[in-house]
């Protein structure tokens, strides 16, 4: 089931009643989510990603715009008639019901033609529990489960009524680091097995990149960029997207284009065919190549060993980040202190106009 969002807008009245201006949580969100794909809505907190999700679920009414599931316009439909499964950030499992009762609950609500017999319900619930590998835990209460298990109950409860669209709100944010890795694989697997169009919200770029077919990067209610995770990472359209994606984060330098040269601070690093102006230069940590005669000079702070790679921490006066962090192969040799030089990989360097932070697409030589 593809999901089409057209000009979706949500405005909230200002909390301060004296201010007439409304708060625009989501602004003209237009996007088509292909059938059977896993989409990550990504952005910092308060960027409107959860609001978008709740509008798709029907819990929030859009101020403007339309939502289609396939060809059906569901904009005006109540949540229960949309056929969505929703997993809440804190799972919202009913604490007084067992796992089985929680999973059965949506089925017991079905009316009319959809009504199931007791045995059918039980079979579907057991199947859903099996899908999320909870077979052994059906008679436990939520309080007797770990965070990851609760998460899986919530997913089973959302899946059991066979929704057209599965929505997950920050599904991993309450889990510890190890469980997060495990559970995101689990979500990926479940999504592949069921082939249900899935939209999930996260502020964790790594999470979104690792399991999404496509990501939608949002800021202040506006879509910044959409596309396959790798494509967005390799070619961010503005400084925000570049900064938001990637761990360790991209190194941003103040620089300028002068007489056909791209300068980072005092160092001319590339030749470009662009008009002179102030720019930001973003360099991915993996874009540095240590070289005796390198073009970029930095003050060495230290080297952090990470096994396969080493992370070289240096300082550069032009850098906006507190330190310049580069990741290079462990075979590189560095002095204990002093100036180190790097050459740069041109495909890992992005130039942004300093006035509007938009990318300047240009060939770096």
């Amino acid at each position, binding site marked *: 089931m593809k999901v089409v969002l057209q000009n979706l807008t949500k405005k909230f009245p200002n909390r301060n009643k004296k201010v007439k201006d409304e708060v625009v949580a989501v602004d003209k969100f237009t996007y088509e989510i292909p059938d059977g794909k896993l989409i990550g809505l990504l952005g910092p907190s308060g960027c409107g990603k959860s609001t978008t999700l709740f509008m798709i*679920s*029907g*819990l929030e009414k859009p101020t403007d715009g339309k939502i289609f599931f396939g060809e059906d316009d569901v904009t005006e439909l*109540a*949540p*229960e*008639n949309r056929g*969505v*499964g*929703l997993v*809440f950030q*804190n799972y*919202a499992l*009913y*604490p*007084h*019901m067992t796992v089985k009762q929680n999973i059965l*609950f*949506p089925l*017991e*609500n*079905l*009316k009319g033609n959809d009504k199931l017999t007791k045995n059918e319900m039980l079979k579907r619930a057991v199947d859903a529990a099996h899908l999320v590998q909870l077979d052994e835990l059906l008679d436990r*209460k939520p*309080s007797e489960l770990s965070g990851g298990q609760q998460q899986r109950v919530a997913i089973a*409860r959302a899946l059991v*009524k066979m929704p057209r669209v599965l929505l997950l709100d920050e599904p991993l944010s309450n889990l510890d680091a190890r469980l997060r890795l495990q559970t995101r694989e689990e979500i990926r697997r479940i999504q592949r097995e069921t082939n249900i169009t899935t939209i999930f919200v996260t502020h964790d770029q790594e999470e979104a990149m690792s399991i999404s077919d496509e990501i939608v990067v949002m800021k202040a209610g506006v879509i910044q960029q959409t596309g396959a995770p790798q494509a967005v990472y390799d070619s961010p359209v503005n400084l925000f997207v570049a900064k938001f994606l990637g761990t360790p984060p991209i190194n941003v330098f103040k620089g300028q284009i002068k007489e056909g040269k791209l300068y980072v601070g005092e160092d001319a690093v590339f030749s470009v065919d662009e008009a002179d102006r102030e720019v930001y230069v973003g360099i991915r940590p993996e874009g540095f190549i240590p070289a005796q005669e390198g073009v970029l000079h930095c003050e060495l702070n230290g080297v952090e060993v990470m096994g396969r790679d080493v992370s070289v921490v240096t300082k550069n006066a032009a850098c906006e980040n507190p330190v310049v962090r580069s990741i290079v192969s462990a075979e590189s040799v560095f002095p204990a202190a002093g100036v180190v030089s790097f050459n740069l990989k041109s495909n890992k360097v992005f130039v942004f106009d300093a006035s509007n932070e938009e990318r300047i697409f240009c060939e770096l030589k």
Partner: protein
Amino acid sequence: MVYGKNQWKAWLYLSPALILLAVFTVWPIFNTLRMAFLENYGLMSANGGATFSFGIGNFLKVLQYKKFLNCLGNTMLLTVLTVPISTILALLIAVCLNSIKFLNRFLQTVYFLPYVTNSIAIGMVFAAMFNIVGNITSADLSETGNIIVTSGIINNIIEFFGGQPISWINAKSSYAANIAVMVIYIVWNALPFKILVLLGGLQSVNKQYYDAARVDGTSRARIFTRITVPLLSPMIAYVVITGFIGGFKEYSSVVGVFGVNMGPVGDAGRLNTMVGFIYDALENDNQGRASAAALILFVIIFAVTMLNLYVSKKKVKY
């Protein structure tokens, strides 16, 4: 942890509460026990130098007393009727109050007003509402029991709809009518506290449970029975238990409506309660009997509370 040198400070800070508890709680309880087991104990005769032998005569007398059984019956009946009614009503009102946005604060205040109003005053208002006022001479009543003039608003309403006025609380009124008035009064009086507790419970329920239920297409009735009530069950148990305890101590409500006669004119004591019985015994300088009755009341309340706790442990789900 307070050691040696500073320990007296701890006792000093505790002393105001300890002294008050000792004087007004521990000593009276002890004294009640003592008086209950002294045969025919009376304060006046005790002051006069009389001595009393030890025994359980007070209890036997109390239990054989027909008046006492009547008081026990009234108290039980009122409690058993009012606790469920007021709890269910309070639950419905709390859920409704919680779901409206408009005038929410104002209505919360309105529903809370009875709580801060003197129960004797409320009783007098209820008496006026159910009363029959007019030049009814006692002779008229004793001969015919007819109602000559009605001005109580309840009877006015009944007459407006073409019904016959009922003698609710006046002479010759029926026991059922008396109890009905008392039930209405006690329920009305008990609602604010229960609404307050349940509303507080409702407001602390995570809104996401309701969002989750909505997405799953749960009907309102099912949300109420399957989600709201179980999630509120600890609060419901609390208001039921305190309701039973309060119900067994019912007294001032009857005084408010019927006056210290504890019954309609011509049948004083008909609606007397356990606490009323204790007061009467005290007035008749029979502290021994009063103490025995108080202990019996205590045992009953204790047993009912234990039963309540036992049931709620099975029913309160989380």
